[in-house]
């Protein structure tokens, strides 16, 4: 199991999350179809995962993602942050996103 990166890098620099350059993707009305190079198969990411995928285009921090999604869905920020933490870890384990410290 790949060790989890901290949520901040050297000297407290926040971790920024980006899509892996090895992840090919296409936006579809009900989500995002993603394929991981070199030999992955297409898979559909739906719902909040699709929204998260769009937000990763700008390389946001966890705090920035939390603020954006909490405002967009009018949810409690702490709950959103916890869910995002899990989602980002899962996407990282699947090698679809990269943590840039």
């Amino acid at each position, binding site marked *: 199991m790949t060790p989890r990166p901290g949520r901040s890098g050297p000297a407290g620099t926040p971790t920024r999350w980006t899509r892996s*350059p090895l992840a090919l993707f296409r936006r579809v009305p009900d989500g995002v179809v993603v394929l991981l*190079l070199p030999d992955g198969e297409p898979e559909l990411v739906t719902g909040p995962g699709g929204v998260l995928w769009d937000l990763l285009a700008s390389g946001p921090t966890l705090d920035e993602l939390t603020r954006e999604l909490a405002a967009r869905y009018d949810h409690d920020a702490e709950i959103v942050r916890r869910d995002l933490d899990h989602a980002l870890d899962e996407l990282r384990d699947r090698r679809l996103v990269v943590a840039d410290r």
Partner: protein
Amino acid sequence: MLSDAASVRALLGRIVAWDLVACDGPLPDRALADLEWVRLLALTRTQRAEGPLARAISAGALVVTARQQDQAFAAHRAAMSLTLLLERDLLAVHTELTAAGVDLIVLKGAATAHLDEADPAARAFGDVDLLIRGSSLPAAIRVIEELGGTRRHHEPRPGYDTRFGKGVSFRFTRNCEIDLHRTLAPGPFGLRIDLDALFASRQRYEIGGVGLDALDRPSRFLHACYHAVLGDAFPRLTTLRDLVRTAPRSDHECRIALGRAARWQATSVVGAGIDHAVGTFGWTPPEPLRTWARLRPEAAREQRWLAAYTGDDRLPALQALQGLAALEGFADRVAYARAIAWPTSTGPRTAGNVRARRGARALARIVRP
């Protein structure tokens, strides 16, 4: 009411162009009846227009039932899954060809999706098209065959592929087709293209962190014209969309594109392509292209060539014969004539061999009246 194939195509044309600047054509203000929808969806798949259909529905521009929306979105997901698989294959082929020293340029959908659409999901494609120098074709063919590709058609005579052919198509056991192009069109128009100029003018882009080369924008416009006018009996709607998306937007771009068309004896092809896009999409080309299209000169020889490619009277044999007039040099003409009149391929009776035999019979009638 979509009562016939022409009306289905007309509606799909308006859907394909609904988000294009300077195109018009109303979309229905009610959902289609079931049979009409089945016909439209079938044509959408044939034309690889799943992207524009899904986007028109998402934007509320096309009224559909919930079931129709589900079907359209499912078709789009399937089309996008295929494009991602093809991009995966493209990157693998690119790696192997580059390692073998083969220079290549990515053509058509795999390039235009990224370079000419705001969202690549608007452009589906069903195969990978690569431009390869004729001298590199033997090496490229070996690479593709080692990767598991099987040629669809044999060359009529050894050496035909590298000197005269439009290209070579390969099928794989999985859902993938790779086309290696030596030039952009069959017959005389393809033989008149300055291939060195094509390779000299490129545009870089990336897929999966890998740098790839496409034709530059003026050449992508010309290729869309070639493909729309010379490729099928009736232009593919997504190709016409590519034509509109890559049309020259400035005096400078126009000079480049139309200058190449003039040198390659393809102004009739460009004019016909613009006419198709205007007629199908209600497109108003940007100036100065619009004025050029209205006042363009009609070269008699190009018009004769064009007649063999268009409409229901397409004649591949005549295209092959007209290639003789497009070639310069006695040696090339002799080699070309031998290849189409007396093919030596012992392969299966494929479409290419059928075309070659028709050309041989037609040539024989001319040689021995």
